[in-house]
């Protein structure tokens, strides 16, 4: 079980860094989010993201960087289990619930609601 304070501080800090990039660079939000996903993946590959999760809990798992980490961990874990083909079969293993849920909810909310503006 994680602590609320570290979740708040680390989650807030990650968002703060992103906001600096939004406001001080010509990068679009899409570009910044891609940078964070890739960064999360690289840190995950170096074994540096899991300690952050241990320390900050949801402060590290909710930001989009965690998505990158999860994709990398899935690929690496499956590769360790079944060889190089595991990089292809395992990538979505840990992120499956997030992507599936997004599609399902997107579809059903579109059925029931309209954009308002």
């Amino acid at each position: 079980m994680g602590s609320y304070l570290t979740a708040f501080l680390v989650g807030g800090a990650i968002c703060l860094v992103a906001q600096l990039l939004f406001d001080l660079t010509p990068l679009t939000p899409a570009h910044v989010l891609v940078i964070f996903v890739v960064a999360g993946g690289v840190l995950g590959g170096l074994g540096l993201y899991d300690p952050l999760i241990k320390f900050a809990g949801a402060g590290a798992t909710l930001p989009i960087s965690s998505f990158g980490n999860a994709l990398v961990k899935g690929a690496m874990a499956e590769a360790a289990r079944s060889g190089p083909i595991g990089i292809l079969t395992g990538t979505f293993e840990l992120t499956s619930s997030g992507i599936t849920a997004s599609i399902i909810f997107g579809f059903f909310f579109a059925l029931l609601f309209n954009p308002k503006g």
Partner: protein
Amino acid sequence: MATKKGKQTIVFAVKPVIIGYSTVAGPKEGQGPVGPYFDKIYPDLAMGQKSFEKAERQMMLNAIDTALEKASLSRSNIDYFVAGDLLNQIISSGFSALELGAPFLGIYGACSSFCEGLIFAGVLVDSGAAQAVITATSSHNNTAERQYRYPIEYGAQLPPWSQHTVTGAAATAVAVRGLGPRLELATVGKVMDLGIKDPLNMGAAMAPAAADTIFTHMEDTGRNPGDYDLIVTGDLGKIGREIVVELAQRQGFDLSGNYRDCGELIYSKEQLENAGGSGCACSALVTLGMLFNQNYKRILVVATGALHSPTSYQQGENIPAIAHAISIEF
């Protein structure tokens, strides 16, 4: 018959008369300073239609029918219909033309369409090819957002230099004779590109075009800003307007007194989130709604448009812009 003066200016021989006009708008515009002047204010952005594109078309047709009524004309005596809007393939205009059954000349000037339409209408009428031409333009916040930027419910954070697309439509009936404001001169703009790449900073992208057209107009006609009660640009917003004032000063024109921007006039200070309003309807609603009801003797309306597309922007191109000026006498 019209003649050309200087590099880019058309002088009408028999000044075409705007014998009828109409403005309709969405709820936000209705609550703004121009609200009292609109013929119709819609209570919401869907306007009882199945899509926002259909709602925009509904506004355009409503404006046209009201303008026809005020001009004592009917759909069957429109000689030509000149219209443009922001949507791909100008579907608001094309589908409205289908409904009207009138001979149609579609135009694209982005947010400069209001003046561009009047220029064509004026020349058609002055040439003797038409007795009465209808012009129309429209824009809708939700149709523009989904085409140029993001889905409406997307949580984007817009910077303080961005603008809000106006929801509204306007139509004019331009005729060879009658009572009403008269088109006196028109300066056709050239496309200008001074290297602005940010589609959220329209003011900076379009200011050079507005400035260039205004300077050319003054040089072609030998006039000064003081010859007009008011000079307005279409939708430069606060930042674009300040840039134009500075550019004019460097060119030897003083625009500090009688120059305003429709993008700043369409919304009140409380409504103004960022730099002001934009969209084809912006210049039209403010000009026909507010400015035509102010006892001016002569005004210069300079509608400004950005000629980029989401594709050109994604491919790294700059934002070219254009501005057309029309001198209107009362």
